[in-house]
Structure formats: C-alpha cells, structure tokens
C-alpha cells in the first residue's frame, strides 16, 4: 500500500518546565486513513496533536505537510493547512445555534448569510451521514449532538486532517457506532482522521494503523490488522500484564442502604434527581451507569450528606439485634445513654441497668460481649451533615469524582491528607500527626504509592498515585458503605486494575460498594448489579452477569425524546 504521506513529524520535542511531554517523536500520517494515537494518560498524545493543531509550538523538531516544512503558530494557521481538531472539552457557545457556532470566526470574504451556511451544513450531513438540526441551540443538545457540531465546524473550514481527542469518552455504545460510521464515510472521501484514545477495543474496530506512545516517546506504529489487543497493551505499558478482574460471588448480602424516592431540583430549576430508589447490599458491588451528568454526582453527594434534597429517604440499615455492643465502636458515654434508653439486654434477656456501677465494671461487661442490642439499628441519613453521619457511627466512605478538589487537598502533604478524616479525635486543641503518619506509611507501602516522601504535596503525585492515596484513606476507615465516583478516570492501566481489585476486596469483606463508572465493559465485568440512570431517573436495575453492553446503552438513553434530558458537560 504505497500511500501518500500527508503529515510527517520529525524529532518533535516539547517540554513543560522539567516535564518532557514529547521526546523525539517521529511519525507519519497518510492520506485517507484512520490513525489511532494510543497511549496511557499523560503519555503526551494530546500534546503531540496540539502541536499539529497549532495550540502548542514544538521546542524542537519539524512538522512537514505534503513534504514541506511548516510552522504552525496558531489554530488559524492550522486551518490554512487544512488541519482541524475536535477537543475533548467542546469549545462551543451555548446560547448560539449549531449553524451560528459553525460559521463563527470563518473569514471567507463572503457576506454573512446564515441560510447558505445551513445549506452547506445540510450538504455535509448528507455526504457523511450526520443528523443535525442547524437551528438547535447548543444548550439544548446532547453530548453526541455537540460533538457532531464540532465535527461539522471543522469540516466547514475545509479540513482534510481531522484530529479527534477522546471522541468516545462520553458517548453511549449506539452513539459510538454512529460516530464510527461517519468517520468511515469521511475516510472514503479521502480525509485523514486521527483519533486520540486509550481504549483498545475501539482502536481495533475503527483504525487502519495505530501509533503507540509511552511516556512521551513514540514506541511504534503498526497495522491494526496485524496486531492484537494484548500486543498493543504491551507496547503501551512497556511490559506484559494480565488484565482481568476476579469477580467473586456475592456472599450473604443484607440490605445495607435503602434509597427511597430521592428528588432534587437544582438552582436552575432542572430536576437532577427524579424519584430515585434502589438498595445497596453488603458484599456486593452496585454499579451506576449513565451518560455523564445524569445525576450520578448529585446522587452520591446526597448520600454522603453534601447535597440537600427535596424529598426522599436514605435509610442506613444495621441489623444488630442480639449482637454484642462491643461489635460496634461506641464511646463510653454513648453506651451509658443508650443503656438508659433501654436499648440493651443481657445474654439471659434481662434489661441492662448501669445505676450504681463503676466505669471499669461497665467497660468490662461491654468488652466481654455480655451486653447485647435489643433492636436493629435503622437510621435516616437524610439532611444529616457528613459530621453528623459520622457521629451516628455510620461508617460511610466516599471517593468523590473531584479528587484534588474535594477528596484531598492538593497543596497538603500525604500526612495532612490522611488527617482529614481523623483530625478531630481527642480532646487536645493540637492535632496529632503521629497516627496519620503511620497510616500514610501503611498506605504508601501497601498500595505501592510512588512518592518522594510523605511530605510531598499530593498534587505533585501522578493521577494514579493520588487516587491510591484517596482510596487508601477511605478504605482505612473500615467502611460499611463505600462509594466511588469514576475512581479510575485518568489512571493508567495498572493503577486502574489495582483499584478494581481493591473494590472487589472490599466487597468480599462485606462492604456495600457503589461504583459509578463510565466504561461499560468494566461495569459489566466488575459489578454484580447495575443501576442505570438517565436524566436523573432510574431507567433500570439489571444483573451485570447476564446483560449485554448494548442493552445497557439503550437504557442509558431511554428517555432520549428530550424531556428531562440533562445535557451535562462534566465528561
């Protein structure tokens, strides 16, 4: 296949401070092909392509287009060379229509005529098989429609080389299929398409060739037909790894967290949570699937006590009838008050009365397991602050989506971050840094966190290590419920699988795990049940062992007719 070389990178180097994003990268892009640029997060894929699109300027090396050396100083220059990039985070104006966004900034010396623009958009749609209403405003569009507008925007400017940065990250399986059909049609039309991605199955499905980058260096470019996923993974990671999740069977599940009819309307009067009900069981991983921004974040934050609700109940169920008090960590004070309320009995059934007893004797009785609970413990966590929840003795751990902005403090070191959960302990007005230090040591060695020392601000760690610190801290609290929102986003493959296996281990220990994910393959492989939400509504609770990806995809867009659809752009 003697194909025409359209773009050539020669020894491209780009550094940011001490960080080398691209080192001596040389590769070629042919005319009329789909090239995947594959690599783990932070390996310099996007930086490399940003240099082609004129966002960055290389520190060293040359870019050749059609055999001639060129200097691409701005996105505008890039368009003159017929290069267009569709960024991961769309750059559209919300209050403009599709057509207005497309024509924005085009200087072709013709009179501004929206009707002719719409006509041209219509022609493009027919040619490549898009569907878009040019008069629809961006804020009314779904993520997939917004992406279409971005693609048209680039085509309208006459681009022959299209760069798509992680185009499938926020799409459902059905939408991905549609996108791929469009891309193939464009390839037939002689356009060159570059897809930046880290998803192997998509690489295998769509691309003609794959360029693999690792740690800023170009490892090699291979024909897709002549390689396998396993080989590509090895090129990406640099060593042989096995990627499988050991999904264990669910043992003795009890209903731990019962959610009933949660409703929440946000300040813009959008119904973000619409009558959500489900049950999370102990010893089970409940996955939550849905398009980004369908209410996942609000749901978890509501459970964690961070989000006020319009209505609904969050019941934390702790069956402990006839279980010893010492089984649950209670302070002496709490035990005495609860005894006074008549909540305990002795092994022989008689009521507990502490009057006239010494503290030492009471502690002895409790520790020996002689004092038992009368009733099950059922608590409504609604409208409780995180602090109140903890004071109730409910061990609820939460790994939020925004790790450095919510779960951790980026500028603090590991020890201070460990302290976040526990600094209140004790009556001293000074903080105790000894125990958090030990915990930090334990997590660093146990989860193989790569850090210069314990006094490094966590923001200096890589994404995977930050997440290990956060998950490690949340697990160390021996939770009864563990909620994790997109816990592997931005993580390299090894760290991702480490996190999956940590979640599974928690499940085996009887924790009720709630896992919000975006990669459907992982959700299907890791979870026991999957709760699918769409536009703030539960569109199905399914068995992860039997359902297919396509069925979940359909559920994710069940109410796609427009009503209540949430155009979240968190993705």
């Amino acid at each position, binding site marked *: 296949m003697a194909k025409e070389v359209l773009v050539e990178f020669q020894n491209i180097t780009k550094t940011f401070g001490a960080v080398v994003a691209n080192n001596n990268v040389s590769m070629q892009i042919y005319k009329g092909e789909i090239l995947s640029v594959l690599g783990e997060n932070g390996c310099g894929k996007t930086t490399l392509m940003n240099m082609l699109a004129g966002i960055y*300027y290389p520190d060293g090396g040359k870019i050749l287009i059609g055999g001639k050396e060129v200097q691409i100083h701005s996105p505008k220059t890039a368009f003159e060379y017929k290069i267009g990039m569709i960024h991961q985070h769309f750059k559209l104006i919300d209050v403009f229509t599709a057509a207005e966004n497309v024509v924005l900034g085009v200087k072709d010396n013709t009179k501004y005529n929206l009707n002719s623009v719409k006509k041209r958009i219509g022609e493009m749609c027919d040619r490549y098989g898009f569907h878009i209403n040019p008069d629809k405003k961006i804020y009314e569009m779904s993520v997939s429609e917004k992406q279409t507008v971005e693609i048209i925007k680039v085509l309208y400017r006459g681009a022959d080389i299209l760069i798509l940065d992680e185009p499938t990250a926020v799409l459902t399986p059905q939408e991905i299929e549609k996108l791929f059909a469009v891309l193939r049609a464009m390839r037939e039309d002689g356009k060159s398409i570059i897809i930046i991605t880290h998803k192997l199955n998509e690489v295998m499905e769509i691309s003609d060739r794959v360029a693999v980058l690792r740690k800023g260096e170009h490892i090699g470019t291979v024909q897709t037909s002549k390689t396998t996923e396993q080989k590509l993974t090895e090129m990406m990671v640099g060593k042989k790894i096995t990627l499988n999740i050991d999904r264990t069977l669910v043992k003795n599940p009890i209903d731990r967290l019962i959610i009933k009819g949660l409703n929440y309307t946000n300040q813009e009067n959008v119904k973000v949570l619409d009558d959500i009900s489900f049950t999370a069981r102990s010893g089970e991983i409940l996955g939550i699937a849905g398009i980004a921004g369908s209410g996942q974040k609000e749901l978890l934050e509501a459970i964690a006590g961070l989000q006020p609700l319009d209505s609904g109940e969050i019941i934390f169920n702790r069956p402990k009838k006839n279980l010893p008090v010492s089984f649950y960590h209670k302070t002496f004070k709490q035990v005495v008050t609860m005894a006074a309320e008549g909540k305990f009995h002795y092994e022989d059934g008689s009521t507990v009365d502490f009057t006239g007893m010494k503290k030492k004797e009471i502690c002895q009785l409790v520790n020996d397991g002689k004092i038992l609970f009368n009733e099950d413990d059922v608590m409504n966590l609604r409208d409780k602050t995180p602090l109140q929840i903890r004071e109730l003795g409910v061990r609820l751990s939460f790994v939020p989506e925004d790790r450095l902005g919510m779960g951790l403090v980026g500028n603090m070191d590991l020890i201070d971050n460990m302290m976040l959960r526990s600094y209140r302990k004790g009556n001293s007005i000074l903080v105790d840094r000894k125990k958090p230090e030990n915990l930090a040591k334990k997590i660093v060695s146990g989860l193989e966190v790569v850090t210069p020392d314990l006094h490094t601000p966590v923001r200096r760690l890589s994404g995977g*290590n930050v997440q290990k610190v956060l998950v490690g801290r949340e697990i160390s609290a021996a939770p009864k419920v563990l909620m994790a929102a997109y816990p592997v986003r931005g993580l390299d493959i090894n760290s991702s699988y480490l996190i999956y296996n940590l979640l599974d281990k928690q499940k085996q220990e009887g924790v009720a795990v709630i896992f919000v994910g975006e990669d459907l393959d992982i959700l299907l492989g890791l979870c026991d049940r999957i709760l699918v939400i769409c536009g703030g509504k539960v569109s199905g609770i399914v068995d992860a062992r039997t359902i297919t990806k396509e069925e979940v995809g359909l559920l994710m867009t069940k109410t796609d007719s427009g009503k209540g659809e949430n155009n979240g752009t968190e993705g």
Partner: protein
Amino acid sequence: MEQKDNQVTAEQKKRFELPFHIVKRSTLPLKKKILVYAIALVGSLLLSSLICWIFGDGNPLDFFAYLFKGTFGTSRKFWLLLLETAFLLGASVALIPAFKMKFWNLGGNGQILMGCLASYAFAYKLGGKMPEWVLLLLMFVSSVAAGILWAVIPAIFKAIFNTNETLFTLMMNYIAEGVVLCFFAYWIHGQDVAFPKPNGGVLPALGNNMLLTILVFFLLAGLMFVYLKYSKHGYEISVVGESVNTAKYIGIDVKKVIIRTLILSGAIAGLIGFFLIARTSAPLDKTLHNNMGFTGIMTSWLAAFNPLFMFLTCFFIAFINTGMSQVQTDFGFTNNAISKIVIGLIYFFVIACAFFINYKIVRRDDSGQKKPLKKRPQIRQRGTNK
C-alpha cells in the same frame, strides 16, 4: 508558548517574534532564591541611592550611611525600629489567619482604627476619674471588642450570603474613618482643632515605654505560628483556604470557621489599636494606623504566610521606613515625596522577585526555535522525581 494571530499566511516564512519566551520553572533551590532576593535588594538600594544623589545634596554613599544612621545610629533609634517592627508584626499576625483561609481581609486599617477609637474614648472620658488599672482593662476589652466587631461583620456576610469580602472589608476602612471624625465632631468639646491627649490610661513602662509592646507582639507572632501549624483550628483554616469543597466533604462547618477566624483577626487588630493609644496615651488621629493594615498584607505575603518569616519581612520594611525618614532629613528633602518614591521602588524590586523565582526566560535562535537541549531530557515521570 503559542503566538497570537499576526495575520500570517502560510507562505510568509519570516514573521515577527520576540527573541525570547517565558517558561515556567519547576523549582528553584533555596540558595538561588536567596540570591535572587539579594540581587533585587542590592539593585533597588543602588538605584535608590542614585535617585537621592540626583535630587538631594550628598553623594550616593551617604544614602547608605544615613539609612543605617536612622535605624542603628543611637539606641533610641534602634528601639524605635524594633517598635515599628513589632506593630507591623502585629498587623501581619492579625491578617494571616484570614489570608491562610483565602479570606482577603483588606480592612486591617479600619479594624486597628476602631481599636484605637475604643481605647481613646475610654481614656478621654474616664481618664483620671478611676483607677488606672480599671481604665486600662476597660480600654483593652473595648478595643478588642471593637476590632472584632469591624472584622466579624464582613465575615458574617461572607459566610451567609457569600458577599465579596475584599470590597466589604475595604469599605469598612472608610466607615471607620468616618466614625472617628463623627466622634471628634460630637464628643470632643471645646475649640480644639485636633484630638486632645487623654488624661490617663497609660500602660506602665517596662524599662522604657516600648519594650512591653515589642514583647507582646513578638510573642503573639510565635503563638500564631503554633496556632496555625499545630492546632486543630489552624488545620481547619488551611483546609477551608485550600478547598471549600474538601472542607464540606469532611464535615467542617465552613461558616463557623470563617466567623471564628475573623473574630481572632479582629481581636488582634483591636489589640494593636489599644497599644497605639495606651503605650504613650497618644491622641487619636484618623491616620494613627499608619497604613499598617495594608503594609501588613505585603509583609505577610512576602513571608509566605509563615509567622516566623514575618519577623524578617517586618523588620526589613520597618528598617526601610525608619531609615528613609533619616535619609529624607539629611538629604534635605523638604517633603516626603522622594522617600515615598524610594520606598515604592524597593517594594517593587522585592515583589518582582516572585516572577524570576517562578519563571525563566529562554532565548530563541534564528529559526524561531528553542536551542536544542544539551542533555538528553528527563522523561516525563511525575511522582518519581527523587
């Protein structure tokens, strides 16, 4: 760095480019940081001496001589230098807990002034009519209360309505000045054109009348260091300052922390007001705060909000201020404009250091590209840089 569009066509090979570009540094070793500051200091002092030489009578070397004469010349001058340092340190100590919380308190002047007013009002009205220690106690309590009042009002609005604290605290300064003028117009009887000296309410001298003030504020700075670094409150302040979301996530009552911290800030500011009046039973004046509320911002910022470094920055600023008044006299300047220029110049040099510490300037060669790296560049590996 990408170049902005300069209307360049694809054929246009040669284009205007700056011969250098600005690159963010990773980290600068401490030695080099100190060197940068030293160069800035020496440079600013040399430039200042030239300015004084041009505009005044004396040679450039005299500038340095006068600067040190005004600060270390006599023991009294040195005590005054320490006193100014102490007050400035007090102002910085009052500001940093709020700053650590990213609450930009620009109302230091007003809070100090309200403290002055409260003390002065008691001293003026009750001076000589009751035992000194009772009066001093009243002055102390009222000053602290007045400082708290002036700081806590913006804090409450910030905590409950999320109003912008920067503007709010700034405006409170002008209200405080107005209150002082009102006090003068309605309370001070007689034909005085300025506030009279009060009849009582003088702090006992400890050796001289400066030592007590100096000790109090130096001690406060030490205590503040411990409070911010080792106490639970201090930890909460840092968490709220770094990320309100994280604070909420772990169950910190952000509103409570904001209000509590500003009570502390206001109390210290009020205390400064008390000492300004009670140290020598000074007459009130609407500029009695000597702009410390703003100078304190700079000293605490330069010290990276560390109370121990603040000893250095406050001493330096106090040194320049007191030294310059000597320079001004000896060079025969009839107004303080030149000394203000010089002080501004020195501040500017010192603050500009932050740019050179965070960024470096890299030259381009003719092809518009950065010179090739001599060493093989270190590969991107975040977190592993040992």
